[in-house]
Structures are given as C-alpha cells and as structure tokens.
C-alpha cells in the first residue's frame, strides 16, 4: 500500500504540473524538498543525540524502570500486548508528556526510543505491531495542552489575546484523540488487527 501511496503522491503532482504547464515548479520543488530534508535531519540529529544521551542515563540508573512501574497501570489498558512494567511504557509516557506540554522537539527522541523498545517485542519485525499503531494513533492526534508554536505566531501577528485559542484547541484535540483510540480499538479487534 505504501508503494502505491508514495507513487500516487508523486504521479499526481507531476501529472497535474504537466497539464498546467508547471513542470519547472515541480522539479524545483523536488530538489528543494530533498535538500530541505537533509537540513531537517541535521537539526533532528542534535536533538536525538541530546535526548538519547539523557535517556541512557535514565535507563542505566533505573529511572526509566521506576517511571514505567509507577505510571504503567494508568496506560496498560491501552496496550494489552505490551508486558506489564515494560520500559517502553516509560518512553511512551515521556513522549506523551512532551507533546502534552507543547514540546514537540523533545517528543520525537522519546517516541523513537519507544518504537525501538516496541520493536524488540514485535513478533513480525517488518509489520507494524498493534501497540505501535495505538501509540502512533495517540501521537498523530497529539494531545496538546499548550500549543506553544501557535501562541507565539499569534502574538507575533499582533493578536489581542494570543492564548484565547487554548480552550478550543484542547477540545478539538481531545475529540480527535478519543476518536483515534476508539477507532484503533475497533480495528485492533477486527480482522485487520490479527497478528
């Protein structure tokens, strides 16, 4: 499916650009996006190194296990396939906490660590496991309490009340996350969720 999706995005862009005589814009966009992705990766590399370094200390000193032990009872019901008190719970919780506080940059390293730990208990290493999908369902619908970036954009644009959208954002994100969890639960129990 991924093969067709990726090809579809490319073909749609190139096809439409060809019809409307936009070929030069299309090729410029492709080259620019390729270069941009390297710049983006360099930024991400710094963040990954910083937080993976911190996580290594937390792991070796037993802090991750402690967090997993204390917090996992609250989330185990979402991840029935993950063994109780597994360290993946600590990484997933730190990822969710970072998203919650609007610290998107710190969330990615914790999230990737969680994926690594979930992969270690995945029976089919090339297929997404059920806990991975549940984790990403929460992640992509992003429970944000403080949309820091949007608030600063609004302030920069001269808003009289840059933070007035916080309530609406929490409600909208809450609707999305609840729906994601319910829909994920339904699919996980259906024939699509068979492992």
């Amino acid at each position, binding site marked *: 499916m991924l093969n067709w999706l990726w090809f579809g995005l490319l073909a749609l862009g190139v096809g439409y650009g060809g019809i409307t005589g936009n070929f030069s814009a299309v090729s410029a966009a492709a080259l620019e*996006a390729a270069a941009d992705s390297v710049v983006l990766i360099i930024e991400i590399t710094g963040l990954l190194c910083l937080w993976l370094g911190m996580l290594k200390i937390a792991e070796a000193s037993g802090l991750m296990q402690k967090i997993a032990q204390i917090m996992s009872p609250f989330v185990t019901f979402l991840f029935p396939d993950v063994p109780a008190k597994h360290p993946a719970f600590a990484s997933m919780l730190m990822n969710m906490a970072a998203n919650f506080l609007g610290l998107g940059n710190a969330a990615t390293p914790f999230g*990737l660590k969680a994926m690594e730990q979930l992969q270690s208990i995945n029976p089919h290493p090339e297929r997404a496991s059920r806990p991975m999908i549940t984790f990403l369902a929460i992640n992509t619908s992003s429970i944000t309490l403080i949309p820091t970036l949007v608030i600063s954009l609004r302030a920069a644009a001269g808003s009289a009340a840059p933070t007035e959208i916080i309530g609406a954002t929490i409600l909208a994100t809450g609707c999305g996350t609840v729906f994601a969890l319910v829909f994920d639960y339904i699919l996980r129990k259906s024939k699509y969720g068979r492992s």
Partner: protein
Amino acid sequence: MIWLSQAAIPLLLVGIPLYGLIKKKPVYELFCQGASEGIAMAGQILPYLLAMLVAIGVLRESGAFLALAQWLNPICEAIGLPAEVLPVALLRPLSGGGALALTTELLADYGPDSFIGRLASVMQGSTDTTFYILAVYFGSVGIKKYRYALTVGLASDLVTFISAVWICHWLFPA
C-alpha cells in the same frame, strides 16, 4: 501550566543526571554513549523523511493542492469551514511546515483575532503531521507494513478538523 511547559526541559536536563549521580553511575560516559546512538538513528530516518518530503513538495508546488481545495469547496460550505482555511486542513497531515506557512499567511491577511485566524490557529495546534510521524517512526525501526495505522491517523485528523470547525463556531460566534 505555561510555567511547567517552560521549566520541563531545564528540570529534566539537571534532574536526570542528578538521579544518575545519586545512583553512582558514570553519567558523562553514559550520556555520550547514548548520544552516539542518535547519529545512527538520524541516518536511518533520512531516506524515509526525504522520500516523503519530496513527494509532498511535488504535490504542493504542482498546484494540485489548490485544485483539490477548490473541488472540495461545496462540502466545506456545508460544514461551515471557510474556503480560506481548507488548504490548511488538507496540508496539515502531510506537511507541518507547509501548513504552518499557510497559517502564518492567514494570520497576516485576516488578522489573528478574526474567525479565519482563530480557526486556522486551532487546526494548526490540535493535530500533528500524520504522514511525517508515520514515515519517521516506522522508518526508524524498519517497519514496511503500516497495516491500519494510516487509516486511523487520517480518520482522526478528519474528526479533529470537523470538531475544530464546530467548536470555533460555538466559542467564537461571528
């Protein structure tokens, strides 16, 4: 709450090594050992990120995006979504930076305290870039079959946007 958001990172930066020192661990060595894993992880992600960003960049710049937005216009009117904000909703799951640029434009053109400005702000803040997250997170561990992950991610984006429209009409009546 905003204080917590600002203090979380500094507190973690001092709290985690402090805990390690109390447990008599070589925190500096451990930090560097962990940090070195970051380089390999970044290298692992790059091809997936590049593939996704190129496809989305091509789609956006070809004009197919605006054409799609125009075509979907009647549906938007029916649910009360202003036509100006539709491109933000369409681009949000694909490209965080692209949607952010559109939101910044709308804030400048219509004002941050207009209905359009508020709705664009809420849409920008209430969900994450589904395609980017799936490509990077699955790519980092070599997952090739996403199964139903994309369906769940995109369906919940749709629900988030529709609820954002209704919530904004309710909280910020024009």
